[in-house]
């Protein structure tokens, strides 16, 4: 079970890092307060 959890966490971490990188490319910031395009108006 520990091994499964490690594998899952690794995969999710890889995805998250890629996503954050893409957000930084598109939005020019990694501060969630600056990323307000999708916010509630």
């Amino acid at each position, binding site marked *: *079970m520990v091994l*499964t959890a490690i594998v899952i966490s690794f995969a999710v971490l890889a995805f*998250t890092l890629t*996503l*954050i990188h893409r*957000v930084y490319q*598109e939005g020019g910031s990694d501060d969630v307060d600056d990323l307000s395009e*999708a916010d*509630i108006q």
Partner: protein
Amino acid sequence: VNGLVLAPVLVPLVAAALGLIAWRHPDLQRYVAVGGAAVLLLAGVVLLLAVERDGIQTLQLGNWPAPFGITMVADLFAAILVVLAGVLAVAVTLYSTATIDPGRERYAYYPLMMVLLAGVCGTFLTGDLFNLYVWFEVLLIASFVLLALGGERAQLEGALKYVALNLIASAVLLVTIGLVYGLTGTVNLADLAGRLAQVEPDGMVYAVAAMLLVAFGIKAALVPLFFWLPASYHTPPVAVAAIFSGLLTKVGIYALVRVFTLLFVEEMADFQPLLLIVAALTMILGVIGAVAQHEMRRLLSFHIISQIGYLVMGLALFTMSALAGLIYFLVHVALAKSTLFLVAGAVKQLTGSFELSKTGGLWALKPGLAMLFGIAAMSLAGIPPFSGFLAKLALIEAGLEIDRIVIVLIALGVSLMTLYSMLKIWNAAFWKPLPSDLEPFADGAAAVTRERVADTRLALMVVAPIVFLVACSLALALAAGPVFDLVDAAALQLMEPAAYVEAVMGGTP
């Protein structure tokens, strides 16, 4: 014999694998996905009939006896939800074939949708807490990618928030499973049901229950843990939003119902006030958020939260009739909600906008679509004779039976506000004339006019899924008698977990 229990998981996984093999052929992927969804629906119906006839079905994977191996269990509640997942899968994959752009199709849109469905069905059918976590991750990873796929800026921002908060939920869930294993030495749900009662000190059991409430609460978007939902659900294509709204938060509710009816029955009395407060706040804040919105998808996203409140109310009341109401409500709201998202997508196709101020005139120009929206909207608001009325009636009667007047009054008030916000969409998109001073689009396309809306024909695969879902919703209301017999039986199974334990453990203590 009991391959049936595994079929709803295997079918979408096989469809996903076939779709990946056909990587370069989006046409083939479409057929595979629609076929996979149809077979999933079929498998769900066969499973439901089998469970209804022969009682709870189990499958010990690899023939390891419970509690050592992983057990798949299908009771009525799980089987009903698998059928629901099948219905939504068919509607949404059909709708996707007409609306998803080639860019998304090329990057594995359909296989991801199938993996998502496999994760959802796996969560419904597993009888093992750790396995539940694994299926949760399967569906979460698929949903992360579906949400971010396409790479528009708003999508990426929404996805980031969604991913971050759901990762916290997953971490809490994983830690909790570690605690449970440390306390009892098992993660099999049926085995846990007996062993958690013997744990000393029982404070630890409360801690575990509270942590599971937080973990599943984030996934189900309960107040005050709902922030990821309105930040992200309005960003992906409507087909994705429709399947998310129909299934993902409901998976969180399913997990809550499962653990509270099976594991924490004794602790339930102490959690009841908390759950009632959470239910009330979720209903109220969700609907207030919805009333304030001027964009269809945002408005509908807030409604998801509000409806989750009703479901938690069903769980909090914790009587047989309340759980029966919860199951009926869950099916009803998943159908109605997905329909409304799909209609919003059709409105966008016709008028080019989700903004309420930039749409209009559809009652005159597209009366058929207006009728379909009207049925789904009235059903959601709880107007007789539609399924929403019966669902709310069941919950409210359950509340009155045990004298929980306050929550009943709140539920009725929220219902009224739901009606108001549905009228808001109705007035803006269907009743008022199309604004004549619409500006041309930024990309140079001409502004939408009455003539253009009237000339636009919706594709068959846009209309057919909406009709299908509305028909299912009407069937739910028309066949209320037999359906309530079924959900009553399902609720009875939930209230008397001994049968579940025995089916899994096979008589051994």
